C-alpha cells in the first residue's frame, strides 16, 4: 500500500471573479488580445533570417570537442549560461528545503509489494544503463547531461515507490552530490586559468574530456536535485 491518501476534494468552480477589481477579466482579455496582435505583427514583419551565427557554429564545431552542435553551444560556446542554470537548480533545492524545514517528516515508509520490487529489480539497472548511454551519446546526437539526469532521477523516484526505500536524511554526503555539478563547473572554469588567462576556456585537445567530466557531474546533480525536490513536494 502506498503512502498517505489525501481525501478527494470537489473540483473548484471555474468562474470566480477576482476580488477588488471587477473589470479585471475583460481588461486582461483585451490586453492579451492586443499583446497577441502586436507580437504577431512583429513576427510577420521579421526580416529574412541571417544565417551568420548557425554558420559560425558549424565552422567552429571541430574545435569544440564534440560533434553535436547543440551540445557544443551549451557546454562550450555558452557554457557560462549552463553554469548559472545548474546553480539555479541547486538553489531551488536549498530554497525548497529552507521553506519546509519545520514541516517535519510526514513521509511514511511504504510497504513494499513483492511484484513491484521484483519489477524494479529488472527495470532499475536498465534505466541506469540507458541514462549512461544518453550521457555518452550527447557528444554525437541529441542527449547529454539534462536528459540523462532526468532519467536517473525518475529511476530513483520509481525505486522509492517500488521498493519502499525511504530517502536518507540530510547529510553532508547528500549535499556533496547535489552540489557536484556546480563545484565541477566552477573548478574546471577556474582551472583553465592554468592554460589560458580566461574562464571556462578549454584547451582544444582536452575539450571533449572536460565536457564529459562536467556533464557527468551535472547528471548526478540533476538526478539528485529532481529526486530531492520530489520528496519535498510529497511531504507538504
Amino acid at each position: 500500500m502506498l503512502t498517505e491518501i489525501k481525501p478527494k476534494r470537489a473540483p473548484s468552480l471555474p468562474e470566480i471573479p477576482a476580488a477588488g477589481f471587477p473589470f479585471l477579466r475583460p481588461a486582461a482579455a483585451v490586453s492579451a488580445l492586443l499583446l497577441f496582435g502586436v507580437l504577431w505583427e512583429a513576427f510577420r514583419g521579421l526580416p529574412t533570417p541571417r544565417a551568420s551565427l548557425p554558420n559560425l557554429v558549424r565552422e567552429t564545431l571541430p574545435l569544440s570537442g564534440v560533434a553535436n552542435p547543440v551540445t557544443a553551444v551549451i557546454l562550450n560556446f555558452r557554457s557560462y549560461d549552463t553554469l548559472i542554470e545548474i546553480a539555479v537548480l541547486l538553489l531551488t533545492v536549498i530554497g525548497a528545503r529552507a521553506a519546509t524545514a519545520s514541516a517535519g517528516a510526514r513521509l511514511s515508509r511504504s510497504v513494499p509489494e513483492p511484484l513491484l520490487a521484483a519489477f524494479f529489480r529488472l527495470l532499475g539497472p536498465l534505466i541506469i544503463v540507458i541514462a549512461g548511454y544518453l550521457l555518452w551519446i550527447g557528444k554525437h546526437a541529441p542527449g547529454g547531461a539534462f536528459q540523462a539526469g532526468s532519467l536517473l532521477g525518475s529511476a530513483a523516484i520509481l525505486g522509492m515507490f517500488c521498493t519502499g526505500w525511504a530517502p536518507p536524511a540530510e547529510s553532508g554526503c547528500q549535499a556533496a552530490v547535489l552540489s557536484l555539478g556546480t563545484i565541477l563547473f566552477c573548478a574546471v572554469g577556474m582551472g583553465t586559468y592554468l592554460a589560458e588567462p580566461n574562464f571556462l576556456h578549454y584547451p582544444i585537445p582536452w575539450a571533449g574530456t572536460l565536457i564529459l567530466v562536467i556533464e557527468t557531474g551535472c547528471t548526478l546533480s540533476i538526478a539528485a536535485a529532481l529526486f530531492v525536490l520530489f520528496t519535498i513536494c510529497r511531504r507538504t
Partner: protein
Amino acid sequence: MIELAVGAPEMALVVAVPLLAACAILVVRRRTAVLGMVASLAIAALAGCLIWRIAQEGPQRMNLGGWSAPLGITLYADGLSGWMLGTTALIALFVSVYASGYFHRNEPATQFGGTANFFWPLWMFLWAALNALILSADVFNIYVALELLGLSSVALVALSQEAPAVSAAVRYLLVSLMGSLSYLMGTAFLYAGAGTLGFKELASILHPESFSFAALALMSTGLCMKSALFPLHFWLPPAHENAPAPVSAALSALVVKASFFVMLRLWFSVFDRVVTEEAAMVPGILGAAAVIAGSVQALSAQRLKQLVAYSTVAQVGYLFMVFPLGVLNPSSWTAVGGALYLVSAHACAKAAAFMVAGNVLRAYGHDRIEDLRGVVQQMPVSMFAFAVAGVSLIGLPPSGGFIAKWLLLTAALEGPEWGFAAVIVAGGLLATAYIFRVFSRSFRNVTDLGDFKKIPARMEWSALTLSLCSMLLGLTATHVLEFMQAGTPLIRVAMMEAGP
C-alpha cells in the same frame, strides 16, 4: 578607438567564488557564519580589485571560453558596471556582518539556528546573481542571471516559513516569473530579428523596426515588474516587510536596482537607436506616479518595516525618471549620473534603515511606529543611524541623496520638464513627512520603557556605517562621477569601436 584590457580574472571570479562558497557551506554545515563572512570578505576584495583595474586601465572585457561574441558570451566592465559592482560589494559586505549577528546560534529561539544554515548559501547565490547580472553583456545570459536572482530572493523571503512570509514569497515569485517570461520573449524576438545575442553586435544592428519595438516593450515590461515600478509594485511591500531584516536590506538596496541597471544598459546602449522620446515618457510617468503613491502610502504605514518598504517604492520611482530625462539629452551625464548616484545613496540609506528596523524588532519584539516611544534612549546608535539614513532619503545636503536629486532636478530643468521637477520636489517633502513621523515617536523621553532585549553590537554598528557611507557619497561627488564615466558608457560608438 578604445583599447580594452582583456582577461581580468576578477570578472569571472566574482561569480564563481560565491557559488563555490555556497556549495562549501552546504557540504560543511558547520560554522556557517564564519564561512559566510570569509567568503564575503573575499568577494568584496575581488570587486575592489576589479574597480581598481577599471580606474587604472580603463574598461575591461572578457570573452568567456575564449570565444568572442557573437559565438560566445562576453563580460564587460566599464565605469558604470564598476560602480554598481562596488556598491553591491559594500552593501553586501555589511549585510553579511549584520546577518552574522542576526542569525545567532545561541539564541533561545531555535528557528534562527536552523535558519542560519539556510541563509548563508542562499545569500551567496544572491550575491553571485547580482555580480553576474552587472557584468554580463549578453541578453540571454542576463535572463538566466535574472532567474537566479529572482529565485534566491524569493527563497530568502520565505526563510522564516511563516504564513505571511510564504504568501508574500508566492506573490513575489509569480510576478518575477511573469517578468522573466516577458523578458525571454523579448530576447527571442531580438534573436529572431538580429541573429545575435551580444550587446555590441545588437547595438550596431538594431533599427526602429516592429520587432525591435516589440522586444524593447517586452523586455522593459519584464524588468519593470522586477523593479516594482508602479503599478506593478504590489508585491514589494509584503515581501520586504515579512522577510528577515538582513534580507529586506539586501532586497530593497540591491535586488530591485539590478533589474533597473539592466534596463538602463538596454535602453542606452543596445536599443539606443530604437528608443523614442514618447516611449521614454512611459517609465518616466509611471516613476513619477510611484514617487507620489509610495510616499503617500508610507505616510499611513503602521509598522516601521512597512514604512521603509513603501519608501523603496517611492525611491525606485525617481530612478525610472532617468529614461525621459536621459533620452532628451543623450550625451549629457546629468540624468544618468544622478540616477546611478541615487542607486548607491539610496542603497546605503535603505539598507541602514532596514537594519535599524530589524534592530527595533529584535529588541522590542514589535516595530509598530505608534509604540516606538523612547527608543532613542535605549538604542542611540541605531536611531542615529536611522536619522542619518533619513537625511539621505529626504535629500538634504551634504548627503548622497542630495547630490542625486540635485542632478536629476538639474536634468529636469534643462529639458525643461516641469512636471518631473515638481514631482522630485514634492517627493522630497513627502519623504520629510514620513521620516519625521518616525522621529517624533522615537525621540521622546519617556519614563516607562517596554521590554528590551539586548542586541549584538555589530547589528547596530553595521547600520551606522552604512548610513555614514551615504553621507560620504555626498562629499566625494566629483570623483565618483568621473569614475562612472570611465569607458564612456553612454556613447554607443565607444562600445562599437572597441576591439573584439
